[in-house]
């Protein structure tokens, strides 16, 4: 079976603004694929084109075998879509919401009668099925929205910043559920700017100012940036930041309480550099090198783009 999502040279402009520019990638079946990027980078625009609700200006995309520009309605029948707004009817009860979306996706009465109680049970919503959706907490709303988006058992699920405004515990549960769905064979495409969420994806695509900067597993992406990170304790954090920031091999210096997080480019040793720059005062009281994470890679990539932009 071919890849459920194939994107080739996809672009979209709004007037003179180029929101997405020449993006290409493939998503494999059963994969959790993350679109990562800052706000306004073009993640949601890309997602909307893949859902068939926004026409591409150039390029093409095939979703579950259908061209998004030519057969958007066939695409829509085969996808689930959930946004950060959850799109529930706040004045309908939990069960009424599910019933409505099941109907919109063309589920027959008999299918609905069988599936809705099962889905409610699976999401732990059975006790709350008569509760008005607007009175649910963020985490429960999110669960309900996910059930609504997957009630027709789509082979492909789109999640647009699905955990915005949800507490950390609910977020963890949500991701555990997403992994269960994926291991059952559903392909998931998720946009996020939460780095901890990005690390939970099988593969990531970095989007910045409408362009695809990098694509790969979180480990591959971090490795390719060739950065090293150290946590340094110093006597004067503010002064240390001012001293370290101008160095070209320093990618970023970020204060964390009484400590500093120093990221260096081109595999430069961050601890040696800090000792040399900070000298006796404010000095390096304690230093420990740590493994770079997706956030470090992301920041490095954005900085390098900004430098390239400034240089050209």
């Amino acid at each position, binding site marked *: 079976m071919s890849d459920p999502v194939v994107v080739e040279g996809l672009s979209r402009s*709004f007037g003179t603004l180029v929101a997405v520019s020449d993006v290409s990638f493939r998503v494999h079946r059963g994969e959790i694929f993350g679109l990562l990027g800052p706000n306004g980078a073009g993640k949601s625009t890309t997602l*909307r084109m893949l*859902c*068939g*609700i*926004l*026409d591409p200006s150039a390029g093409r995309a095939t979703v579950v075998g259908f061209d998004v520009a030519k057969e*958007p*309605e066939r695409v*829509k*029948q085969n*996808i689930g*879509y959930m*946004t950060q*707004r*959850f*799109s*529930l*009817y*706040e004045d309908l009860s939990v069960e009424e919401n599910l019933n409505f*979306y099941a109907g*919109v*996706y*063309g589920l027959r009465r008999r299918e609905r009668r069988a599936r809705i109680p099962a889905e409610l049970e699976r999401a732990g919503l059975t006790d709350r099925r008569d509760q008005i959706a607007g009175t649910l907490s963020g985490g429960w709303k999110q669960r309900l929205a996910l059930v609504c988006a997957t009630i027709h058992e789509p082979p492909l699920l789109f999640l647009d910043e699905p955990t915005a405004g949800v507490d950390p515990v609910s977020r963890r549960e949500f991701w555990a559920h997403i992994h269960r769905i994926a291991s059952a064979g559903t392909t998931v495409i998720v946009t996020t700017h939460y780095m901890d969420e990005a690390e939970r994806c099988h593969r990531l695509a970095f989007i910045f100012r409408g362009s695809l900067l990098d694509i790969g597993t979180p480990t591959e992406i971090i490795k390719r940036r060739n950065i090293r990170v150290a946590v340094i304790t110093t006597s004067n954090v503010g002064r240390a930041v001012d001293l370290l920031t101008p160095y070209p091999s320093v990618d970023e210096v970020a204060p964390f309480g009484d400590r500093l997080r120093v990221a260096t480019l081109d595999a430069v040793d961050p601890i040696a550099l800090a000792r040399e720059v900070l000298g006796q005062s404010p000095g390096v009281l304690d230093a420990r090198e740590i493994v770079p994470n997706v956030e470090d890679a992301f920041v490095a990539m954005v900085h390098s783009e900004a430098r390239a932009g400034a240089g050209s």
Partner: protein
Amino acid sequence: MNRMLSIAWKEMIQARRDRLTMGMMVGIPIIQLLLFGYAINTDVRNIATVVYDQDHSEESRGFVRRMEATGFYDVVGHVKSYEEIGIALRSRDAMVALVVPPRFGAEVEAGRAAQLQLVVDGSDPQVVASATDTAMSLAAARSSVLTIERLQRLGQPVSAPTQVIALEPATWYNPDLRTAVFIVPGLVGVILTMTLVMFTAMAIARERERGTLEQLIVSPIRSGELTVGKILPYIAVGYLQMTLILVVGSLVFDVPIVGSIPLLYLLSVFFIAASLAVGLFFSTLAKTQQQAMQMSFFFLLPNILLSGFMFPWEAMPAPARWLSTILPLTHYLRVIRGIVLKGASLAELSSELVWLAGLTLVLIIVVSMRFQKKLG
């Protein structure tokens, strides 16, 4: 003081950025002024009149000419029976009919009293007074002229009746000229316009505001299914409201329902459809529920003032009448008053139905062109 001014300043900026609100602030006073000052006129002129002349004498033709010369009557045709007068009045081709009896001219010539009849449509009480008064004074004036002529010819007093030409007014439909009879059926139309336009205009804006519209757009639902599904419940609401007003109107205000109730319910679907189409059109324009509400309110104004609900349509200047023909309510008022008060038949109302259907069709085409299942 400073804090208060900050609030006022912020309020001004927000009002200026909201183009619709700004437009309404300027537009409503101007349009109100124009409508009230220019279009609203209770002095009816150019009342459509038919003539049933059974005499065809010089005297009868002269009377019709003098009627037209007053500017109050506009002779739109001649009829050959009381039956045809009924048809003309029910289909609203005319509001007044002049009936000239046989041998009218000969009787007047002979100096004997002769009687004309003026049939007036009483379903709009405001028209009745001006319609009859003018004709009455015309008859009195002509009588005086005839009497003086006769005196001069004979040179001596004659034992002729003081008023040679008597005019007998006859009010058909609502003979007691009760305002409730005129207002209640019209109110059905006004209330349907108000609620149906507002409900549908807000229904889509609400989905847009809450983000559920996007969820529907990514679903396989078709535009048609969404649109029709949205308006179906409101058609039922429309019928419920109509039933309520008619039942209360007949029980409390004793408004008779002369015509066929099934016909009324059947034909009302044309108007309900037109109102819902207007609402849907607004919903494609409005981004928020508030805007939808403002548009509906804005739409309601000309409907109340120009449709003939409160002020006689006949009294309006031509531009106001042209404008009113594109309002569904103008046509529906004729349908519902025609059926409820005059017992009009389907054939007599056909031109209004063609208008309503045409307006609905145009709006539906515009709406489906504007409502695409796409973003951006």
